[in-house]
């Protein structure tokens, strides 16, 4: 049988070419960098000695690596859990389609539109123990007695950044989930209502299962977006105090641009990449199974 070239390939060719150039090249460059001993002295030249897994061995023995890894996961999971729950609650709320719902939903998007560095600096003020509103309010109501120095205490600093990130991420979760909710078939709900299903039953047995693909996308995008956080941490704490907010991206930055150890910095970036790759593969596997099942 003679194979015919699918003309579709021709149409995607330009896009593939650009992807390979703009995404593939830096990726491969970074991987090769992580196997070499590269400093500022030989960054431009060809004299970059190949050192095998030396950078990775150094990284795994580095005292900050487990700290950064743990912090990155804490930040990601902490952020996503709250962003998702609050975002979902708001999406359900706005799906009731009352007056002003659209207007308010639009207003919510503001926090998604503000540049990250601006938000970071705003929350530095809000979380400050001397002038911060987020300390003033709980004290006023008597929930806490002393202001909490959110960003200066190692046990709170990460939560200070997570709170900031929750505020940023809620509208994103809300918007995607609200779109998903709007597209659910109305007749199923009507049938359930006729059969006397309660609100909770409808939510558990109709909304959640039907919305699963959307939930998966929201979680996955949120995870990827959150896991590679850099600007928030860099502006708010710079990884401190006492490395309590050091994450993989800031560690990579520190190795590369403060210590000029580009090989080591690249190896951190690659670990970050591999973790995200694994998550993405799991996601693709799960969606594939879903499609087969349905």
């Amino acid at each position: 049988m003679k194979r015919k070239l699918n003309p579709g390939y021709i149409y995607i060719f330009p896009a593939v070419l650009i992807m390979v150039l703009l995404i593939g090249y830096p990726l491969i460059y970074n991987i090769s960098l992580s196997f070499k001993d590269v400093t500022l002295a030989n960054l431009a030249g060809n004299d970059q000695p190949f050192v095998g897994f030396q950078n990775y061995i150094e990284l795994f023995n580095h005292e900050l690596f487990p700290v950064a890894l743990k912090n990155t996961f804490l930040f990601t999971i902490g952020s996503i859990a709250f962003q998702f729950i609050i975002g979902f609650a708001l999406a359900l709320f706005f799906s009731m389609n009352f007056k002003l719902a659209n207007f308010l939903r639009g207003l919510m998007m503001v926090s998604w539109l503000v540049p990250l560095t601006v938000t970071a600096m705003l929350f530095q003020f809000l979380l400050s123990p001397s002038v911060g509103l987020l300390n003033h309010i709980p004290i006023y109501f008597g929930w806490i007695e002393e202001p909490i120095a959110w960003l200066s205490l190692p046990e709170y600093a990460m939560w200070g950044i997570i709170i900031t990130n929750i505020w940023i991420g809620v509208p994103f979760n809300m918007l995607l989930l609200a779109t998903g909710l709007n597209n659910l078939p109305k007749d199923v709900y009507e049938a359930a209502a006729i059969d006397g299903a309660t609100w909770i039953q409808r939510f558990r047995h109709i909304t959640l299962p039907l919305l699963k693909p959307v939930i998966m996308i929201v979680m996955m995008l949120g995870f990827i977006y959150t896991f590679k956080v850099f600007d928030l941490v860099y502006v708010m704490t710079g990884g401190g105090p006492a490395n309590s907010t050091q994450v993989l991206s800031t560690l990579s930055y520190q190795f590369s641009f403060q210590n000029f150890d580009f090989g080591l910095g690249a190896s951190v970036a690659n670990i970050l990449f591999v973790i995200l790759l694994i998550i993405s593969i799991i996601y693709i596997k799960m969606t594939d199974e879903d499609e087969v099942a349905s």
Partner: protein
Amino acid sequence: MKKWHWSLLALFSILILAACNPGDGSNENDSTEDNESAAEGVAELTFWSYVNPNQHDGQLLMDMVDEFNEANENIEITYEYIPHGEIDQQVSVAVAGGGLPDILMIDNPDHARYASMNVLEDITDKVQEWGEEAQYFEGPWASTIYEGKNYGVPFTTNALALFVNNDMLNEKGIEVPTTWDELTTASQQLTEGNTLGFSMSAISGPEGMFQFLPFLLSTGANYDQLDDPNAYRAMEFVTNMVDEGYMSRETLNWGQGEVASQFTAGNAAMMVNGPWMLPQVRNDAPDMDFSIALIPKDSEYASVLGGENLALPKGDHVEEAWTFLSWLSSKEQAMRFSEGSGQFSPRVDVSDELGWEGDPHLSVFLEAIDNAQPRGPHPAWNEIAEAIQNQVHNSITGISTPEEATEQAHQDVIEIIE
């Protein structure tokens, strides 16, 4: 039908190739491309500086560059402002992708690192021929030398001192403190409501280390002598100031600029900072009566040298760049910049002639500069600073005791140095 598809592909390819053509993409900013085609015989140089052209001193420096360009027909220097925090990153990018400047401003503790990375031109011969070394203060000059060779010329110098809000001290009848004990007592008396007695930056990394080092030096120890029996006292001192509430815990995230804002807002009665903050303090708190004192001492007065150096990255225009650098470093021009900007010149003759000994604020900084020690010089200064400042954080936040933190800092530094 098929042919139609293939012609579409060809069209895409042509479009992409056209977009990739470098001849198309150049614009005014693309200096390296234009260099070749520019007017014959004129060398185009770039000067990376972190002196902000929107401020008075940056404007002055740009005017001086313009003047140089007019006087030298065959050299055209472009002043490019790169914020201080981005210099490292921009240099890395330039080394990898080309486009290093011909003249580079470097914070003096970073100089050894750049020199060790083979980025800078060895200008020992030129400096010797120039013969002005004797006119420079020792500390700033030493920071431009790596392994016995000259890699630049100091441009400005400074040191840290104590800023004191006289109104607050007078109100309580407190004398300006000269020792740590007096500083602690004064801070205690001055701490009231929203006003804290003392402030200094304890941010992570080199900036925080710059502020911590005078205290460490005052105990008689140094970054490479953290096993000195008194070294822990510096950690203990700053930790105690925070524990007692005389210094804000937020100082762990405050840079020197934020500390100055606290001082001008009246939230801190005293602060450690440098002379570059004088314009900001006068501007933000025009009615405040403040004075400058040496940083209170433990066993000896100590301060740390700050300041900017100028170096020549390797490139095709080293001769022209040196013409500019030696011109800018001449007594006449150094005098002009120092006088106009209020920054201290590393040149002895300029300093002598300006007569700042008579100024109540500047004279104290002059004295501090005299006492000041350079940071390092060590090519791994950033890593050393990072390691020590980490332990300062551990001590202040109570993760370790001051003794444990000092011991750990000692081991980390030894590991980096060896």
